[in-house]
């Protein structure tokens, strides 16, 4: 063997050995929490999009001015103290000392004000608050004020809203137009985003923020001390549900945020895994009609749908398939919350199928329905919407409607539901689409997106129009807390007369995690602070 060959051989052998030794196990031990998230993180901007996964990312890297505790009460988070003037028109806030962004900059009142302003141009709760606001100004390095034109009873709830939370970003970031994507992720939250390890569609990495200053109170819901108890968090996108479950069983991942329900029996058999509902509020399945074109431009035809729907368990068992995670519920503003009411709920809810079908047919006749085709959008790759669409199609056929179940994907539904015209003008016309909304957004007339019914055609897809319903809805933010329930009752009564949408039931998605984890908080969204891994 020549010297050259010998050296080459040695170099190759040394290289191979180095490759073998350079395994993850030789790295310095650190606690790593591995989560299979509900979806892939594609967008970092928590204002530009209302997607849940982006809000979950926000909870990792940003902090909020206020947060809801376990009893859904707004508690100060970044705010140290606050006060309200006697006329309720001026709210003064002071930030906690020592708050820092991940780039080392101190969090100031200007950051908070800019973040509120950006949020309020896009997120419905903020948009509503701004209708009452005269100005929002920084009055010092760590103090700011919200000055109102007229009293608005939901200031703290708006600042603490958990579905599309108001995260505080750097002033420079918050000055971006809300429709232009913020591509940075520099917050002041308990974890820091590791951009260089982000592989969209595969992996998102966060590391503990060593400079985070948690509140002294214990963690409670979204409120209290947000202590990061692991060094690193990895979101691993596993598109195949079965593989995700096998990875959990084997311990390659620690948590599945939303395990597929038909695989739960497999997960439950494993003594090392816990399956638990942490979201006590739940999610509302809904379907929405196009109110601009026949037949559902007629309130009688929409009422017929209430009778056609009748027993919500048909929807829930199709979507979920586990009775313990299903809750038939006709309370528009969510069962189990302070605004649960049976006002306006008619005899369709009794679930007498035969009577319901007869009543639905009679209502359709009154509406003048003559067998026109009803297009039900069916995004087949999105299980929750697809399962609902199939059930709706069958129920409509049972009441004598002609149904076209249009098989599409979610992306097409998102585009197609923007079409206002009827089939004579646009072949993409639609009559019904299905979706769902988090209970904490749906449980208030302020944040329940499908309820607004102003007749300006600018409300949510389907464009219901009823001035009376809208008038009652707008009483809500002006009312003192003790009057709110009464308003909700009137609102729901009117709701079931004009039927802006059909609630198809409430469900609760469990989280599955390995038993070596402790400290998972009971929150409507899975948050990853306070979790310890043994």
């Amino acid at each position, binding site marked *: 063997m020549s010297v050259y060959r010998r050296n080459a051989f040695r170099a190759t052998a040394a290289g*191979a050995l180095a490759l*073998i030794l350079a395994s993850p196990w030789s790295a310095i031990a650190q606690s790593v929490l591995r989560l299979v998230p509900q979806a892939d993180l594609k*967008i970092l901007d928590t204002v530009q999009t*209302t997607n849940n996964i982006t809000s979950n990312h926000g909870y990792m890297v940003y902090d909020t001015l206020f947060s809801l505790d376990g009893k859904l009460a707004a508690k100060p988070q970044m705010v140290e103290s606050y006060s309200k003037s006697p006329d309720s028109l001026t709210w003064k806030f002071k930030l906690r000392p020592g708050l820092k962004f991940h780039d080392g900059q101190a969090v100031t009142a200007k950051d908070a004000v800019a973040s509120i302003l950006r949020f309020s141009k896009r997120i419905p709760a903020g948009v509503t608050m701004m209708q009452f606001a005269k100005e929002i100004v920084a009055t010092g390095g760590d103090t700011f004020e919200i000055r109102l034109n007229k009293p608005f009873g939901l200031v703290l709830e708006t600042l603490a809203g958990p579905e599309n939370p108001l995260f505080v970003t750097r002033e420079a970031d918050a000055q971006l137009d809300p429709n232009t994507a913020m*591509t940075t992720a520099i917050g002041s939250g308990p974890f820091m985003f590791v951009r260089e390890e982000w592989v969209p569609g*595969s992996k998102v990495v966060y590391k503990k923020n060593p400079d985070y200053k948690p509140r002294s109170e214990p963690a409670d819901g979204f409120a209290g001390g947000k202590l990061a108890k692991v060094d690193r968090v990895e979101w691993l996108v596993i598109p195949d549900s079965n593989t995700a479950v096998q990875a959990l069983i*084997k311990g390659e991942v620690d948590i599945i945020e939303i395990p597929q329900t038909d695989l739960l029996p497999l997960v439950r058999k494993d003594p090392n895994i816990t399956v638990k509902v942490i979201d006590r509020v739940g999610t509302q399945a809904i379907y929405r009609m196009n109110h601009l074109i026949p037949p559902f431009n007629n309130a009688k035809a929409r009422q017929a749908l209430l009778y056609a729907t009748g027993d919500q368990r048909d929807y829930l068992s199709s979507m979920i398939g586990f009775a313990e995670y299903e809750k038939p519920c006709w309370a528009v503003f969510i069962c189990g919350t302070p605004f649960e009411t049976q006002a306006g709920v008619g005899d369709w809810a009794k679930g007498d199928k035969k009577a319901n079908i007869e009543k639905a047919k009679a209502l359709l006749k009154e509406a003048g329905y003559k067998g026109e085709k009803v297009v039900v959008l069916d995004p087949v790759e999105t299980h929750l919407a697809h399962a609902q669409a199939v059930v709706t199609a069958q129920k409509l056929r049972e009441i004598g409607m002609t149904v076209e179940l249009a098989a599409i994907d979610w*992306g097409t539904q*998102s585009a197609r539901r*923007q079409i206002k015209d009827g089939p004579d003008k646009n072949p993409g016309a639609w009559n019904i689409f299905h979706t769902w909304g988090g209970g904490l957004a749906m449980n208030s007339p302020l944040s329940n997106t499908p309820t607004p019914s102003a007749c300006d055609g600018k409300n949510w897809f389907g464009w219901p129009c009823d001035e009376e319903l809208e008038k009652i809805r707008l009483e809500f933010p002006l009312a003192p807390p003790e009057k709110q329930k009464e308003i909700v009752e009137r609102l729901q009564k009117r709701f079931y007369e004009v039927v802006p949408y059909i609630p198809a039931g409430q469900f609760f998605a469990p989280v599955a995690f390995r038993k070596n984890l402790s400290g998972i908080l009971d929150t409507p969204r899975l948050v990853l602070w306070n979790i310890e891994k043994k």
Partner: protein
Amino acid sequence: MYVFLIRRVLAAIPVVVVVTIFVFALLHLAPGDPAAIIAGDLATAEDVAKIRAKLGLDQPLMIQFFTWAGQLLRGDLGNSIFSAHPVSQLIGQRLEPTLTLTVMTLFISILLAVPLGVIAAWRVGSWIDRGVMGFAVFGFSVPGFVIGYVLIWVFAIELDWLPVQGYTPLAKGFWPWLSNIILPSVTLALAYMALIARITRAAMLETLSQDYIRTAHAKGLATPHVLLRHALHNAAVPIVTVIGIGVALLIGGVVVTESVFAIPGLGRLTVDAILRRDYPVIQGIILVFSGAYVLVNLIVDMLYTVLDPRIRY
């Protein structure tokens, strides 16, 4: 030969241009709106319209095309509408897993399937032949995800030898890399082994019936020599063609296996981008795929001349 190479490369340019125009048109004419997906389910039409305008998606199609084509001519594939990552970076992140999977799958397939096909042809009609053909039918018939699940259950869960899912780059260690890639490669290789074994057998059967093979036997040459030097060499053209097609398919079309094993390959990137209507990403990937197809075909054509001296360009 060089003239042929240059001619083929030049001929590839209009192919790629046509593919580019076709894909752009198809994507933008198909229903779907990335702005609506970005805005989220609870956004209003007004929000969606504002985002669409910010992204320039409200511009006439021709303007959008020429903007993109202009970027392309400057070597810029653009950025993802969603993550704002450069498309070239997204593709770069996925290249290693995809190429690893392709090479390992072909390595296993060729290593096992060619000898099996040769032996089956040599022992045509015997139990070995029937066994190989039975295996080929099995390999074709059983869907990849079923094989994947079974392999996960046996080797990851029951035996605990290999991980269930994921991909570890080679730079992070040889064994972590290899352990992640074994099961998906075997899953994919089963179908390709079936294909290559059948083609090898068919090509070999035809070659083995030729007069020169009889002559080789009559000269007293050893059977392995006849099979490998005389028969396989001459039967190689269709086998190489099939392997070439396999390479092209593996680079872009193994979405199911990538999904089952959570491998972040180009196939999944493509499907994710299509579902979200992330136009720049889809266009960039298709461009890369069409380039890869052209390259693979070129290499296969070159190999023909090596394997069969009668072929000259």
